[in-house]
Protein backbone atom coordinates (compact mmCIF):
# COMPACT_ATOMS: atom_id res chain seq x y z
CA UNK A 1 0.00 0.00 0.00
CA UNK A 2 2.90 2.36 0.85
CA UNK A 3 4.22 1.89 -2.68
CA UNK A 4 0.96 3.14 -4.19
CA UNK A 5 0.93 6.21 -1.95
CA UNK A 6 4.59 6.84 -2.82
CA UNK A 7 3.89 6.49 -6.54
CA UNK A 8 0.94 8.91 -6.35
CA UNK A 9 2.98 11.54 -4.46
CA UNK A 10 5.86 11.10 -6.91
CA UNK A 11 3.60 11.61 -9.93
CA UNK A 12 2.07 14.70 -8.27
CA UNK A 13 5.54 16.12 -7.55
CA UNK A 14 6.76 15.52 -11.11
CA UNK A 15 3.62 17.16 -12.51
CA UNK A 16 4.01 20.17 -10.20
CA UNK A 17 7.67 20.59 -11.23
CA UNK A 18 6.75 20.22 -14.89
CA UNK A 19 4.19 23.01 -14.63
CA UNK A 20 6.41 25.19 -12.42
CA UNK A 21 9.26 25.28 -14.94
CA UNK A 22 7.16 25.38 -18.11
CA UNK A 23 8.80 28.61 -19.33
CA UNK A 24 11.81 26.54 -20.36
CA UNK A 25 9.82 24.27 -22.70
CA UNK A 26 6.64 26.11 -23.86
CA UNK A 27 6.04 23.96 -26.94
CA UNK A 28 6.32 20.71 -25.03
CA UNK A 29 4.06 22.15 -22.35
CA UNK A 30 1.35 22.97 -24.88
CA UNK A 31 1.48 19.40 -26.12
CA UNK A 32 1.62 17.92 -22.61
CA UNK A 33 -1.17 20.12 -21.26
CA UNK A 34 -3.52 18.80 -23.95
CA UNK A 35 -2.30 15.23 -24.37
CA UNK A 36 -1.91 14.28 -20.71
CA UNK A 37 -5.55 14.70 -19.56
CA UNK A 38 -6.88 11.91 -21.83
CA UNK A 39 -4.07 9.66 -20.53
CA UNK A 40 -4.73 10.30 -16.83
CA UNK A 41 -8.52 10.23 -17.19
CA UNK A 42 -8.17 7.03 -19.25
CA UNK A 43 -6.13 5.62 -16.36
CA UNK A 44 -8.95 6.52 -13.98
CA UNK A 45 -11.46 4.75 -16.25
CA UNK A 46 -9.24 1.64 -16.25
CA UNK A 47 -8.83 1.56 -12.44
CA UNK A 48 -12.57 2.12 -11.96
CA UNK A 49 -13.29 -0.50 -14.64
CA UNK A 50 -11.07 -3.03 -12.87
CA UNK A 51 -13.02 -2.47 -9.63
CA UNK A 52 -16.24 -2.85 -11.60
CA UNK A 53 -15.02 -6.11 -13.11
CA UNK A 54 -14.07 -7.36 -9.63
CA UNK A 55 -17.42 -6.48 -8.03
CA UNK A 56 -19.36 -7.72 -11.06
CA UNK A 57 -17.52 -11.06 -11.13
CA UNK A 58 -18.07 -11.68 -7.42
CA UNK A 59 -21.74 -10.85 -7.50
CA UNK A 60 -24.05 -8.30 -9.03
CA UNK A 61 -24.63 -6.45 -5.79
CA UNK A 62 -24.97 -2.79 -4.85
CA UNK A 63 -21.26 -2.10 -5.30
CA UNK A 64 -21.22 -3.41 -8.84
CA UNK A 65 -24.07 -1.02 -9.71
CA UNK A 66 -22.29 1.92 -8.06
CA UNK A 67 -19.05 1.09 -9.86
CA UNK A 68 -20.83 0.76 -13.17
CA UNK A 69 -21.96 4.37 -12.80
CA UNK A 70 -18.55 5.54 -11.49
CA UNK A 71 -16.91 3.99 -14.54
CA UNK A 72 -19.52 5.44 -16.90
CA UNK A 73 -19.07 8.91 -15.39
CA UNK A 74 -15.29 8.70 -15.70
CA UNK A 75 -15.64 7.41 -19.26
CA UNK A 76 -17.69 10.49 -20.18
CA UNK A 77 -15.01 12.70 -18.62
CA UNK A 78 -12.34 10.80 -20.55
CA UNK A 79 -14.31 11.46 -23.75
CA UNK A 80 -14.46 15.14 -22.83
CA UNK A 81 -10.68 15.22 -22.34
CA UNK A 82 -10.07 13.35 -25.61
CA UNK A 83 -12.33 15.68 -27.59
CA UNK A 84 -10.66 18.74 -26.03
CA UNK A 85 -7.27 17.30 -27.06
CA UNK A 86 -8.63 16.73 -30.57
CA UNK A 87 -9.73 20.36 -30.82
CA UNK A 88 -6.44 21.79 -29.53
CA UNK A 89 -3.89 19.41 -31.01
CA UNK A 90 -5.55 18.39 -34.28
CA UNK A 91 -7.82 21.31 -35.19
CA UNK A 92 -5.62 23.97 -33.60
CA UNK A 93 -8.38 25.65 -31.57
CA UNK A 94 -6.66 27.48 -28.71
CA UNK A 95 -9.31 27.18 -25.97
CA UNK A 96 -12.29 25.12 -27.21
CA UNK A 97 -14.76 26.33 -24.59
CA UNK A 98 -17.61 25.67 -24.82
CA UNK A 99 -17.50 22.76 -27.25
CA UNK A 100 -18.77 19.17 -27.67
CA UNK A 101 -16.24 18.23 -25.00
CA UNK A 102 -18.41 20.08 -22.48
CA UNK A 103 -21.41 17.95 -23.41
CA UNK A 104 -19.47 14.86 -22.30
CA UNK A 105 -18.02 16.51 -19.21
CA UNK A 106 -21.44 17.73 -18.10
CA UNK A 107 -23.06 14.37 -18.95
CA UNK A 108 -20.45 12.62 -16.80
CA UNK A 109 -21.80 14.28 -13.67
CA UNK A 110 -25.09 12.37 -13.94
CA UNK A 111 -23.73 8.80 -13.62
CA UNK A 112 -21.15 10.00 -11.09
CA UNK A 113 -23.90 11.49 -8.92
CA UNK A 114 -25.97 8.29 -9.26
CA UNK A 115 -22.94 6.21 -8.22
CA UNK A 116 -22.33 8.27 -5.09
CA UNK A 117 -26.03 8.29 -4.26
CA UNK A 118 -26.42 4.51 -4.71
CA UNK A 119 -23.44 3.85 -2.47
CA UNK A 120 -24.40 6.24 0.33
CA UNK A 121 -28.03 5.11 0.17
CA UNK A 122 -27.03 1.59 1.26
CA UNK A 123 -25.82 2.99 4.57
CA UNK A 124 -28.16 5.98 4.66
CA UNK A 125 -30.12 4.85 7.71
CA UNK A 126 -26.95 5.25 9.81
CA UNK A 127 -27.11 9.01 9.24
CA UNK A 128 -28.99 10.99 11.87
CA UNK A 129 -31.49 13.72 10.98
CA UNK A 130 -29.14 16.21 12.66
CA UNK A 131 -26.27 15.16 10.36
CA UNK A 132 -28.48 15.36 7.28
CA UNK A 133 -29.72 18.81 8.27
CA UNK A 134 -26.16 20.05 8.92
CA UNK A 135 -25.05 18.58 5.61
CA UNK A 136 -27.88 20.30 3.76
CA UNK A 137 -27.07 23.66 5.37
CA UNK A 138 -23.36 23.23 4.47
CA UNK A 139 -24.23 22.47 0.84
CA UNK A 140 -26.57 25.48 0.61
CA UNK A 141 -23.95 27.79 2.15
CA UNK A 142 -21.26 26.50 -0.23
CA UNK A 143 -23.60 26.95 -3.20
CA UNK A 144 -24.31 30.56 -2.18
CA UNK A 145 -20.58 31.25 -1.71
CA UNK A 146 -19.58 29.71 -5.07
CA UNK A 147 -22.40 31.50 -6.91
CA UNK A 148 -21.45 34.75 -5.17
CA UNK A 149 -17.79 34.37 -6.08
CA UNK A 150 -18.59 33.77 -9.76
CA UNK A 151 -21.54 36.14 -10.20
CA UNK A 152 -19.65 39.41 -10.77
CA UNK A 153 -16.74 38.11 -12.89
CA UNK A 154 -18.87 35.83 -15.10
CA UNK A 155 -21.81 38.17 -15.67
CA UNK A 156 -19.47 41.16 -15.89
CA UNK A 157 -17.52 39.53 -18.72
CA UNK A 158 -20.60 39.71 -21.00
CA UNK A 159 -20.02 36.30 -22.55
CA UNK A 160 -22.50 34.22 -24.54
CA UNK A 161 -25.38 32.81 -22.53
CA UNK A 162 -24.07 29.29 -23.23
CA UNK A 163 -20.65 30.17 -21.79
CA UNK A 164 -22.23 31.79 -18.75
CA UNK A 165 -24.37 28.71 -18.14
CA UNK A 166 -21.30 26.46 -18.42
CA UNK A 167 -19.30 28.77 -16.13
CA UNK A 168 -21.86 28.24 -13.37
CA UNK A 169 -22.79 24.64 -14.22
CA UNK A 170 -19.42 23.03 -13.53
CA UNK A 171 -18.80 24.37 -10.01
CA UNK A 172 -22.44 23.84 -9.03
CA UNK A 173 -22.43 20.27 -10.34
CA UNK A 174 -19.20 19.68 -8.42
CA UNK A 175 -21.03 20.83 -5.31
CA UNK A 176 -23.89 18.46 -6.12
CA UNK A 177 -21.34 15.61 -6.09
CA UNK A 178 -19.83 16.94 -2.89
CA UNK A 179 -23.27 17.10 -1.23
CA UNK A 180 -23.47 13.29 -1.42
CA UNK A 181 -19.77 12.45 -1.21
CA UNK A 182 -19.24 14.15 2.14
CA UNK A 183 -22.04 12.01 3.61
CA UNK A 184 -19.97 8.98 2.60
CA UNK A 185 -16.98 10.50 4.37
CA UNK A 186 -19.06 11.07 7.54
CA UNK A 187 -20.32 7.48 7.41
CA UNK A 188 -17.01 5.74 6.83
CA UNK A 189 -14.54 8.17 8.43
CA UNK A 190 -13.63 5.88 11.33
CA UNK A 191 -13.46 2.72 9.24
CA UNK A 192 -11.11 1.33 6.64
CA UNK A 193 -13.37 2.75 3.92
CA UNK A 194 -12.70 6.22 5.35
CA UNK A 195 -9.48 6.59 3.33
CA UNK A 196 -11.04 6.00 -0.11
CA UNK A 197 -13.94 8.27 0.80
CA UNK A 198 -11.56 10.98 2.00
CA UNK A 199 -9.73 10.76 -1.33
CA UNK A 200 -13.00 10.89 -3.30
CA UNK A 201 -13.96 14.04 -1.38
CA UNK A 202 -10.52 15.57 -1.89
CA UNK A 203 -10.72 14.82 -5.63
CA UNK A 204 -14.14 16.47 -5.86
CA UNK A 205 -12.89 19.47 -3.83
CA UNK A 206 -9.97 19.86 -6.26
CA UNK A 207 -12.32 19.64 -9.23
CA UNK A 208 -14.54 22.29 -7.64
CA UNK A 209 -11.60 24.68 -7.08
CA UNK A 210 -10.32 24.01 -10.60
CA UNK A 211 -13.74 24.64 -12.15
CA UNK A 212 -14.24 27.89 -10.20
CA UNK A 213 -10.80 29.08 -11.32
CA UNK A 214 -11.43 27.96 -14.91
CA UNK A 215 -14.74 29.85 -15.04
CA UNK A 216 -13.09 32.93 -13.56
CA UNK A 217 -10.06 32.81 -15.86
CA UNK A 218 -11.98 32.14 -19.07
CA UNK A 219 -14.33 35.02 -18.20
CA UNK A 220 -11.23 37.24 -18.10
CA UNK A 221 -9.60 35.61 -21.14
CA UNK A 222 -6.74 34.69 -18.85
CA UNK A 223 -6.78 30.91 -19.30
CA UNK A 224 -4.16 29.28 -21.50
CA UNK A 225 -3.17 25.64 -22.09
CA UNK A 226 -0.57 24.81 -19.48
CA UNK A 227 -2.07 27.04 -16.76
CA UNK A 228 -1.21 25.92 -13.23
CA UNK A 229 -4.88 25.27 -12.48
CA UNK A 230 -4.66 22.17 -14.70
CA UNK A 231 -2.65 20.57 -11.92
CA UNK A 232 -5.84 20.46 -9.86
CA UNK A 233 -7.61 18.50 -12.61
CA UNK A 234 -4.67 16.09 -12.92
CA UNK A 235 -4.47 15.62 -9.14
CA UNK A 236 -8.19 15.02 -9.03
CA UNK A 237 -7.97 12.12 -11.52
CA UNK A 238 -5.00 10.71 -9.62
CA UNK A 239 -6.93 10.86 -6.35
CA UNK A 240 -9.94 9.13 -7.92
CA UNK A 241 -7.62 6.38 -9.15
CA UNK A 242 -6.06 5.99 -5.71
CA UNK A 243 -9.47 6.04 -4.01
CA UNK A 244 -10.88 3.30 -6.26
CA UNK A 245 -7.75 1.21 -5.89
CA UNK A 246 -7.89 1.48 -2.08
CA UNK A 247 -11.60 0.70 -2.02
CA UNK A 248 -11.08 -2.45 -4.06
CA UNK A 249 -8.30 -3.45 -1.64
CA UNK A 250 -10.45 -2.92 1.44
CA UNK A 251 -13.74 -4.39 0.22
Amino acid at each position, binding site marked *: MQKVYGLTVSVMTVLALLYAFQNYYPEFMHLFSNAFPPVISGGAVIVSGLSLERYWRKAK*GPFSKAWFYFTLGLFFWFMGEAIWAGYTLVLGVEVPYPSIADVFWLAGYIPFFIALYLYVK*IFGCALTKKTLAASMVTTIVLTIIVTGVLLVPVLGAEEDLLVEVADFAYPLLDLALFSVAHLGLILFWKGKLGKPWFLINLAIAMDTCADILFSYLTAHNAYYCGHMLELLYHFSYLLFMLAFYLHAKEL
Partner: protein
Amino acid sequence: MNQERSMFEKALVEAIDEGLLMLGEGGREVVYFRLRHSYALSKEDVPAHPEIFIECLRKIFGSGSKAIEKTIIKGLYSKLGLTYAEKKNFDFFEYLNEAKKQLGL
Protein backbone atom coordinates in the same frame (compact mmCIF):
# COMPACT_ATOMS: atom_id res chain seq x y z
CA MET B 1 -33.73 -23.57 27.67
CA ASN B 2 -30.85 -25.05 25.62
CA GLN B 3 -33.14 -25.60 22.67
CA GLU B 4 -34.32 -22.00 22.80
CA ARG B 5 -30.76 -20.75 23.07
CA SER B 6 -29.77 -22.86 20.07
CA MET B 7 -32.75 -21.51 18.13
CA PHE B 8 -31.71 -17.97 19.03
CA GLU B 9 -28.14 -18.57 17.89
CA LYS B 10 -29.27 -20.15 14.64
CA ALA B 11 -31.58 -17.20 13.97
CA LEU B 12 -28.75 -14.74 14.68
CA VAL B 13 -26.37 -16.50 12.28
CA GLU B 14 -29.07 -16.49 9.59
CA ALA B 15 -29.91 -12.84 10.26
CA ILE B 16 -26.23 -11.90 9.93
CA ASP B 17 -25.92 -13.93 6.74
CA GLU B 18 -28.94 -12.24 5.22
CA GLY B 19 -28.18 -8.79 6.65
CA LEU B 20 -24.68 -8.74 5.17
CA LEU B 21 -26.22 -9.40 1.77
CA MET B 22 -26.99 -5.67 1.65
CA LEU B 23 -23.29 -5.44 0.67
CA GLY B 24 -23.75 -8.03 -2.06
CA GLU B 25 -22.29 -11.53 -1.89
CA GLY B 26 -18.80 -10.17 -2.50
CA GLY B 27 -19.07 -7.69 0.37
CA ARG B 28 -20.41 -10.41 2.68
CA GLU B 29 -17.50 -12.67 1.83
CA VAL B 30 -15.03 -9.86 2.59
CA VAL B 31 -16.56 -9.41 6.07
CA TYR B 32 -16.39 -13.16 6.77
CA PHE B 33 -12.83 -13.26 5.43
CA ARG B 34 -11.78 -10.41 7.76
CA LEU B 35 -13.55 -12.12 10.64
CA ARG B 36 -11.66 -15.37 10.01
CA HIS B 37 -8.25 -13.87 9.32
CA SER B 38 -8.11 -10.93 11.71
CA TYR B 39 -10.18 -12.33 14.58
CA ALA B 40 -10.01 -16.11 14.06
CA LEU B 41 -13.80 -16.21 14.22
CA SER B 42 -16.14 -18.14 11.95
CA LYS B 43 -19.69 -16.95 11.30
CA GLU B 44 -21.02 -19.79 13.46
CA ASP B 45 -19.02 -18.40 16.41
CA VAL B 46 -20.56 -14.94 16.17
CA PRO B 47 -23.46 -15.62 18.61
CA ALA B 48 -20.88 -16.45 21.29
CA HIS B 49 -18.78 -13.33 20.49
CA PRO B 50 -21.06 -10.71 18.96
CA GLU B 51 -18.75 -7.93 20.22
CA ILE B 52 -15.94 -9.19 17.96
CA PHE B 53 -18.26 -9.27 14.96
CA ILE B 54 -19.40 -5.69 15.64
CA GLU B 55 -15.80 -4.54 16.10
CA CYS B 56 -14.92 -6.08 12.74
CA LEU B 57 -17.86 -4.30 11.06
CA ARG B 58 -16.98 -0.94 12.65
CA LYS B 59 -13.33 -1.30 11.62
CA ILE B 60 -14.38 -1.66 8.00
CA PHE B 61 -17.41 0.60 7.74
CA GLY B 62 -17.04 3.11 10.59
CA SER B 63 -20.41 4.64 11.53
CA GLY B 64 -21.82 3.10 8.36
CA SER B 65 -21.83 -0.25 10.18
CA LYS B 66 -24.91 0.94 12.10
CA ALA B 67 -26.96 0.46 8.93
CA ILE B 68 -25.81 -3.17 8.71
CA GLU B 69 -26.38 -3.73 12.44
CA LYS B 70 -29.92 -2.37 12.11
CA THR B 71 -30.70 -4.67 9.17
CA ILE B 72 -29.37 -7.66 11.10
CA ILE B 73 -31.41 -6.83 14.22
CA LYS B 74 -34.58 -6.34 12.18
CA GLY B 75 -34.00 -9.70 10.49
CA LEU B 76 -33.34 -11.39 13.83
CA TYR B 77 -36.50 -10.01 15.42
CA SER B 78 -38.53 -11.09 12.42
CA LYS B 79 -37.08 -14.63 12.54
CA LEU B 80 -37.81 -14.88 16.26
CA GLY B 81 -41.37 -13.58 15.81
CA LEU B 82 -40.62 -10.51 17.93
CA THR B 83 -41.77 -6.98 17.21
CA TYR B 84 -38.94 -4.65 16.33
CA ALA B 85 -39.37 -1.15 17.67
CA GLU B 86 -36.64 1.40 17.16
CA LYS B 87 -35.38 2.75 20.47
CA LYS B 88 -33.26 5.84 20.91
CA ASN B 89 -29.68 5.19 22.06
CA PHE B 90 -30.15 1.40 21.79
CA ASP B 91 -27.13 -0.31 20.26
CA PHE B 92 -26.74 -3.77 18.71
CA PHE B 93 -26.03 -5.47 22.05
CA GLU B 94 -28.98 -3.88 23.80
CA TYR B 95 -31.30 -5.09 21.05
CA LEU B 96 -29.77 -8.57 21.40
CA ASN B 97 -30.30 -8.54 25.18
CA GLU B 98 -33.83 -7.24 24.72
CA ALA B 99 -34.58 -10.13 22.35
CA LYS B 100 -33.09 -12.64 24.77
CA LYS B 101 -35.12 -11.16 27.61
CA GLN B 102 -38.31 -11.42 25.62
CA LEU B 103 -37.53 -15.07 24.86
CA GLY B 104 -36.73 -15.71 28.52
CA LEU B 105 -33.09 -16.67 27.85
